[in-house]
């Protein structure tokens, strides 16, 4: 859902020009499936064991009681994530300028909350000094 919304903002980002990547702990095959189904024109990068997510400070570990609930759905994250399957990134979005400095951050522990793509486009336009 969020990726499809971002896809709709991609043309605006491309015009700036800015690039967009998604980073996920899941195996590339799962990302390939979603990229094709949603016709995504930006890459979903495979972050095995959340090593890059950890450096962005967005990693958390699911508590045991939640793992039990997921398993009962049934949902076994080990089928999706190769390493540390019950460790996940908080949903979040970072805008990085050309010098490599973080200029905008939107991260929320609530996985049902995601930044609006329009806000992301606005944040990027702001750092390139365009309305």
């Amino acid at each position: 859902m969020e990726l499809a919304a971002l896809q709709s903002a991609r043309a605006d980002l491309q015009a700036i020009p800015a690039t967009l990547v998604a980073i996920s702990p899941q195996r590339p095959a799962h990302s390939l499936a979603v990229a094709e189904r949603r016709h995504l024109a930006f890459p979903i990068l495979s972050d095995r064991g959340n090593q890059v997510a950890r450096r962005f400070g967005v990693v958390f570990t699911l508590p045991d009681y939640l793992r039990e609930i997921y398993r009962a759905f049934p949902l076994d994250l080990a089928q999706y994530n190769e390493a540390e399957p019950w460790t996940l990134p908080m949903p979040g979005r970072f805008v990085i300028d050309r010098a490599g400095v973080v200029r905008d951050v939107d991260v929320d522990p609530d996985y049902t909350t995601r930044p609006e793509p329009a806000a992301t486009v606005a944040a990027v336009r702001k750092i390139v000094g365009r309305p």
Partner: protein
Amino acid sequence: MSLKEELAAFRARAESKRAPEVVAAMHRAVDELRACGAIGRVLKVGERAPEFTLPDQRGEPVSSAALLARGPLVVTFYRGVW
């Protein structure tokens, strides 16, 4: 519909199909994550973003340095398709 409205509708639909104790446990996990100060450990505005090179969904390496050479970069973290 904005993404926010779409997500709220999705959440309401999903929660209506789940047992109340399951919904409560899922809310508890979010509340605990909020309370433990996880947000305080997130990279902040003004800090240097880590450089990375990761394979895309087809196994092709993508480097942040190469993307930044073309302009600003938006990085979004995605839990997965499940």
